[in-house]
């Protein structure tokens, strides 16, 4: 194991804290005995592959299959699906290009990688759109059959990139994939259209060969998927094998060498790959089980949030029922109705839909009903870029309501982390009788990672404020530690009451326009939010040293920042990574923790929203690093910002 290499366990805070002692006394998070550059030594341990083609080419399917194969081969991995909003955009156009990037290998992987080592381009548009992602020396595999005059024109190309010299810096393999696929599937008697559609498996076979990955998971998938159609099944299997065999011939003639990727030294556990939307669905169901309460998930389809609705609908055997409402407002309202009736209402959307739900969130705050609102953020404003990721709905979650209407906000940092974040959101909602925002984003929802299965028996049960059966009492009697009222619901004979959005009397719950009462109700709502922090763990460092630069972030930038800070530490910078799960309220110790650093850097995929919250709540003067191009940060960009603002620790040591 190289020095500077700590653990391969993915990053539930808790699991991490157990393994690695974190110190605030300027002691490094891990030993940095050498100045080894992680990129140099680990280059062979990690690979970045990008598949690109038309949105109808099955690119995302290839990516998912490659991901499974990689996981079963024992590699750690992180993926980035990057696709257009159009379902099947006109073929061969630049705007119709769909891509899937994966970083995998025998190392700890937290990002999909900055620059692909291998680009697979199914057509000229996919090639030119993705060229800017590549560094010189990268391998490019294209379908040579696709570089016809007509298709070049579709891609707005005046000359053929295979011939005009613009690929000189790369290793290019133009393979007649379409012809070779047709030949491979010929014995299975498909029509021309179906035959052509097998080429994604041909290419997958080749790429699996390139990295010595197993074909078995894909074979199993094809057998399941085409169980009802023998010729489709056999043709796709034949294409997969033919692509694989083609790789072997390329090795023989010396044009391509197979790479053997070592297994990642994973900690002992059972692992699976999981996307953010899957883990979030599981987390919500798990929270319901921990609270012994049924969930009503009420939603209206919107990209990129719809996959949560789909996954939860597939989990209806586990104490959840989904309801597709007529609009975003009805979705949140029916969820609130379910919570009023004693089930836990959950709703989900993306920014524009959350905007529509806003008035109803005020009702949930006023009536003190539990509710979880999931926001899978996307680029805005308005419709913005539905399939591109952004972190620009933080203001909306923290501040975006009429009146003084506090709502707790938690954020997930990675696909697997949505599991624990969902449980935390439900815990807060039920403990304090309040709506809770759970922020995730398009990147987390669609990306996947390798996840060590959690030990579910170790999760604490979630208490609710539901009254004991047959009891009677006052609905607005509060728990002084949480400000939760009694969660009485229709059917509870001892608690018949009326509630509404009009200001209510603090004791009786009846309508009250009394001046002093409104003051005390407003104070109470603020106190409820503040008391959420009483149950939150202290903020810790993900890694790094005290005293120099604190990189403070939230959400899906986790993996990139983790890698950038790790690299910077190895190079001797005095830097630490602080990643927030709780944003409203902030962890009680955060203010004090940040005073122990010279500077604070806040990288965000927005124009500086967490930076604003930190200034607002803690009077911290943060340095901002912002990007809003619809893509995750590159590790290199975050590292450059760290280098610009962090002191060199080694120099300090030398001076001392």
């Amino acid at each position, binding site marked *: 194991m190289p020095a500077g290499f700590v653990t391969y366990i993915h990053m539930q805070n808790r699991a991490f804290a157990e393994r690695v002692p974190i110190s605030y006394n300027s002691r490094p998070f891990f030993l940095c005995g050498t100045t080894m550059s992680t990129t140099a030594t680990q280059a062979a341990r990690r690979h970045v592959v990008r598949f690109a083609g038309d949105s109808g080419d099955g690119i995302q399917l290839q990516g998912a299959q490659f991901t*499974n194969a990689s*996981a*079963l081969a*024992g590699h750690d991995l992180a993926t980035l699906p990057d696709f257009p909003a159009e379902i099947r955009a006109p073929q061969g156009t630049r705007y119709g290009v769909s891509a899937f990037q994966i970083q995998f290998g025998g190392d700890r992987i937290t990002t999909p990688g900055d620059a692909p080592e291998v680009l697979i381009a199914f057509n000229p548009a996919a090639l030119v759109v993705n060229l800017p992602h590549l560094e010189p020396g990268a391998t490019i595999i294209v379908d040579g059959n696709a570089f016809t005059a007509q298709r070049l024109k579709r891609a707005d190309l005046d000359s053929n990139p295979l011939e005009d010299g613009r690929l000189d810096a790369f290793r290019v393999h133009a393979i007649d994939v379409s012809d070779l696929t047709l030949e491979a599937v010929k014995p299975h008697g498909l029509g021309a259209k179906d035959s052509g559609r097998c080429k994604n498996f041909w290419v997958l076979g080749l790429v699996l060969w390139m990295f010595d990955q197993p074909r078995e*998971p894909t074979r199993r998938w094809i057998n399941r998927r085409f169980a009802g159609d023998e010729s489709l099944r056999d043709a796709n299997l034949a294409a997969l094998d033919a692509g694989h065999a083609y790789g072997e011939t390329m090795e023989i003639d010396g044009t391509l060498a197979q790479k053997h990727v070592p297994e990642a030294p994973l900690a*002992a*556990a*059972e*692992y*699976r790959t*999981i996307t953010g939307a899957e883990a979030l669905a599981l987390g919500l*169901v*798990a929270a*319901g*089980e921990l609270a012994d309460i*049924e969930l*009503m998930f*009420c939603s209206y389809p919107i990209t990129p949030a719809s996959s949560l609705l789909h996954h939860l609908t597939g*989990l209806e*055997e*586990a*104490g*959840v*029922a*989904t*309801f597709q*409402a*007529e*609009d975003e*407002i*009805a979705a949140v*309202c*029916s969820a*609130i*109705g*379910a*919570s*009023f*009736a004693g*089930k836990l209402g959950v709703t989900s959307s993306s920014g524009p839909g959350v905007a529509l739900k806003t*008035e*109803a969130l*005020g*009702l949930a705050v006023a009536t003190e009903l539990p509710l979880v609102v999931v926001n899978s953020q996307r680029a805005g404003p308005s419709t913005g870029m539905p399939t591109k990721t952004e972190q620009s709905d933080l203001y909306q979650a923290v501040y975006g309501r009429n009146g003084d209407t506090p709502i707790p906000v938690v954020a997930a940092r990675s696909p697997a982390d949505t599991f624990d974040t969902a449980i935390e959101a439900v815990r807060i909602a039920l403990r304090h009788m309040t709506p809770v925002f759970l922020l995730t984003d398009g990147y987390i929802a669609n990306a996947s990672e390798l996840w060590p*299965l959690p030990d*579910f*028996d170790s999760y604490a049960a979630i208490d609710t404020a539901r009254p004991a059966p047959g009891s009677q009492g006052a609905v607005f009697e509060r728990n002084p530690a949480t400000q939760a009222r009694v969660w009485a*619901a*229709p*059917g*509870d*004979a001892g608690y*018949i*009451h*009326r*509630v*509404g*959005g009009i200001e209510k009397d603090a004791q009786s719950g*009846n*309508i009250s326009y009394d001046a002093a009462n409104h003051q005390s109700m407003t104070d109470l709502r603020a106190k409820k939010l503040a008391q959420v922090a009483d149950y939150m763990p202290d903020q810790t460092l993900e890694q790094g040293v005290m005293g120099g630069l604190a990189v403070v972030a939230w959400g899906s930038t986790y993996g990139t920042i983790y890698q950038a800070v790790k690299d910077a530490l190895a190079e001797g910078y005095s830097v630490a990574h602080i990643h927030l799960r709780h944003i409203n309220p902030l962890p009680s110790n955060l203010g004090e923790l940040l005073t122990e650093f010279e500077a604070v850097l806040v990288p965000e995929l927005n124009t500086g929203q967490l930076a604003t919250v930190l200034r607002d709540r803690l009077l911290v003067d943060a340095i901002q690093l912002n990007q809003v191009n619809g893509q995750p940060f590159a590790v290199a960009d975050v590292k450059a910002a760290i280098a610009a603002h962090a002191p060199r620790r080694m120099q300090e040591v030398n001076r001392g």
Partner: protein
Amino acid sequence: MAELTAKDYATDQEVRWCPGCGDYSILKAVHRALAESGADPANTVFVSGIGCSSRLPYYVETYGFHTIHGRAPAIATGVKLANPELDVWVVTGDGDGLSIGGNHLLHAIRRNVDLNILLFNNEIYGLTKGQYSPTSRIGTASPSSPGGSIDQPIDPAQFALGCGATFIARCVDIDQKALPGILNAGQAHEGTAFVEILQNCIVYNKDVWDDVSSKKTAADAQVLCEHGAPLIFGKARDKGLRLNPRTLSLEAVTIGEDGVTEADILVHDETNPMIAELLVRMRDPLPTAMGVIHRRTQPAFDQAYRARKTLERKTRVKDLLRRGNLLDRR
């Protein structure tokens, strides 16, 4: 449980409607209906939106939820899907239900959620001080339409019929004889019951229904629809509705005149949506249709929903976690 009287369904809250408001009469009918049906206060829920009508839940001794403008049908749908055992009532008005909340009303009705929806129609916005509403007749002068409104109004019962309602009734606010029975008929209906109540706003649209409901006009201006009975009306019970097959429309005729006999009068069939269509459209000089205009059987959404989505926890999370491509590195 001891038998409850109408009084037992009143709360200790002071009723805050204007003196003389039609809502008082409707509230009284609601209390009476609940007592007559023996409603269990713990399992009855009144959900309302915003507006004068929507204050009603505060005055009914059951569970109540005064929500936000226009959204009562959506919230009530959530309540009913979460617990189909509950009797769920929705109280709304012409502004709340047909303007800001028209979409939710549409979808609650077309899904046929088992809700008893009472729409108080006074053809005006009361709580915002008298602006014209989506049911105001053309020419309604109001603070926001001093020269008279120019919007084409919508008829609530026609709207409900267009949404596929399985129960449509109409009644006047002060009709204490008919209203409790109509409310209970709606409550008993499986699916969405839509009850339009012609309500008098004493401050902003006083006597707007006089042409239909005043003592002087009522007998001739209303026809009470009773399933299986001929559609006869008039002080002397000598007028009736006859179907003109040539124009496919209803016409008012007098029995004994021009050779008209009772056999010529259309017999009400509440299950026939074509008859309902003709009845809800009737306006002066034809009488306004009252009572249960339309009622037919269709499975309620909440029943179908819960048959499929039981909310039972049959699979545990520990098993769900392992559903995937597993890599065992223990």
